[in-house]
């Protein structure tokens, strides 16, 4: 089997179950200076996310096919080969205040657990971010994982400062999403950031904010491209 990494072709002369195994094979047998990142080998550390034929995949859980083209994630500065600089993840988490801001003592139950179960499965692999077409035109957009993380804290009954989360996601946040669903399709954990963003819009309205695109439309922008994609 042959695979291409950053346009260079490599032959894999061994049966491999995952793309990560193929990359380790290359490193240990033909090109030891090839650089890629990995950790857990079981889909939970998020380090090995790459693009395969243009789609985001975790190398440790993708089964490679002959002719696959492997590239680094989009939007993050490339460090070397398939390694990118994801340090901006943390700046985003900080910007959207993705944490429990003010603990409010509450007794939770199994329904409360279910409400945030999927969102808290996030492994921060950034597949959703790399798949998001909005980042291409607005690099300041908070993007899917940061908004899903914020959403998780806003619906946690223990959060005593919901509005603080809502306040920081108005600009370059929830209203900039086009609801194209690419993030949801890219997530290896089955998380649905698009729906979380829709829910955050509803929460924003409940907290006194309004869709700035509707505002634009009423004052003269009624025709033409609706960047918001809403109906």
């Amino acid at each position, binding site marked *: 089997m042959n695979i291409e990494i950053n346009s260079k072709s490599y032959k894999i002369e061994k049966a491999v*179950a995952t793309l990560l195994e193929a990359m380790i094979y290359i*490193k*240990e*047998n033909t090109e*030891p*200076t090839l*650089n*890629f*990142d*990995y*950790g*857990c*080998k*079981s*889909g*939970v*550390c*998020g*380090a090995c996310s790459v693009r395969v034929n243009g789609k985001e995949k975790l190398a440790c*859980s993708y089964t490679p096919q002959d002719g696959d083209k492997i590239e680094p994630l989009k939007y993050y500065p490339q*460090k*070397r080969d398939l*390694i990118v*600089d*994801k*340090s901006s993840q*943390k700046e985003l*988490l*900080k910007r959207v*205040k*993705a*944490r*429990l801001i003010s*603990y409010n*003592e*509450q*007794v*939770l*139950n*199994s329904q*409360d*657990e279910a409400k*945030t*179960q999927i969102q*808290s*499965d*996030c*492994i*921060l692999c950034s597949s959703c971010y790399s798949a998001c077409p909005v980042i291409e035109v607005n690099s300041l957009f908070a993007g899917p994982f940061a908004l899903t*993380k914020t959403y*998780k*804290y806003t619906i*946690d009954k*223990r*959060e005593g400062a919901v509005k603080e989360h809502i306040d920081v996601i108005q600009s370059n946040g929830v209203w900039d999403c086009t609801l194209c669903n690419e993030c949801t399709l890219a997530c290896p954990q089955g998380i649905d950031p698009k729906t979380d963003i829709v829910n955050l819009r509803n929460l924003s309205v409940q907290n006194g904010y309004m869709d700035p695109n509707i505002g634009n439309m009423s004052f003269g922008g009624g025709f033409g491209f609706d960047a918001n994609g809403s109906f």
Partner: protein
Amino acid sequence: MRKVDILIVGSGIAGLSSAIKAKSLGADVAVATKGVATKSNSVMAQGGMNVALGNIDRDSPNLHISDTLKSSHNLADKEMVSKLCNGGIDAIKFLEEIGVPFSRLDGADTPLKSIAQRALGGASAKRACYAQDYTGLKILHTLIDGAVNLDIPIFEGLFLLELIKNNDSEVCGGLFFNFDSGEIEPIYAGKVIIATGGFGAIYSKNTNSATSTGDGLSAILKAGGELSNLEFVQFHPTTLKGSNILISESARGEGGYLVNCEGERFIDELSTRDKIAKAIFEQLKQNREVFLDLRHIGKEKLEHLMPQELKLIKQYANTDATQELVAIEPAVHYTMGGASVNEQFEVIGLKGCYCIGEASNANVHGANRLGGNSLLEAVTFGLLGASEALNTTASKIEEQKFNYILPIAKDSDNLEVYKAKNSLSDTLFKQVGIIRDEQNLLKALETIEELNIDSLKIDDTPKHSTLLIELLELQNASVLAKALIKSALWRKESRGAHIRSDYQDELIEFEKNSTVSKKDLV
């Protein structure tokens, strides 16, 4: 000059718990980690964290203490175990209040009473608090969210090369290789806390993140600190055959069976890991394949309690665990030994250097760790370690010059690194595995010495070189492998996870820790 009150090396659950605590006590704290924080081995913990909340069964810290001591084969220290088990309430309260999304029970009257608990091996009550089977992931990411938002700097891509000492022989910082600049740089600190995890990944078949290579322990040893009980390497009974993907103990805790190819159960599934791993190993030696049987638990319950397990089993073994048997084998999972520490978590032989989490041997696991006690140790001793480190006078910071030479030389054969790495990890698994004897241990030592890992060099630019990181890790692996084998040779008995075919009994004269220091490695 970069200088902080507290430098924490390692960004897993122990390190970040410690960092948040130190920050809350007003310290200027920084975390240095060789990879990215999300890659820490803690993220892979599945089953749960033991705290005797008694939410389902009658339970108490005393029962927890007694289970832990029993599992340790008389090697754990009662005071430290008591500190661990009694500290559980503060630890779980800390996690609840920073927002960890635990699994919940209905109808509770206080926040802690609502946390769901499950059975794990060796426990006399349902004691493990969990978040489905993603307990490590959800605790770690909540800690990352907290640390980032508290403005605790997490310096990623800093590989610890050695500890820095001042003229009074106190530790006053760490010397790092910076993956992003390719340069060597010091961080000075009043206190250093090592939370770099265990060294399970130096074995060929293991369930750990590839990052678990014991870098902090190697640095402690070289600086003059003492390591102990390295021979106690825990094999997890249930990893997927071939890929060694971990299938949590919760699978047995929720009622899963272990059966051989004739369909017979051959061991109490809720016994301790040392006993189960040995029983499985013996079946495999007789060419009887071993399986985990979850079919009778029912699809709905499995999907609710173990979503990750089902996904992993499907993905890596192409097996539907709700309908089919799952082929398993034991693999290295946890290292009970580590840096010897006193009751304040300060490393024996060093001043100003503390060690917490899997990296330390805080005398709470002895010869076998109970499932669910590692997360408890990481959080409880993480929190306590920060307080202790801030409780005494800080080391004097003296700026120094360094002449550390990276193992780089033009025209080196880069492939030699992988030949040596695979040889070392295979040797450990085959000759320093579940069942050991003197002849094989000596042979393993000889093989590893012949690999001459200290003389290996690479031909690559240092900046962003994963090859260089792998060689630095291999150098540490080699130090630890030799120390581990020497400890295993010394312990001429069988106890817990250390099983010798040539010394099969547990002996009273070995009811003590094995120790290794710098002088033992020359």
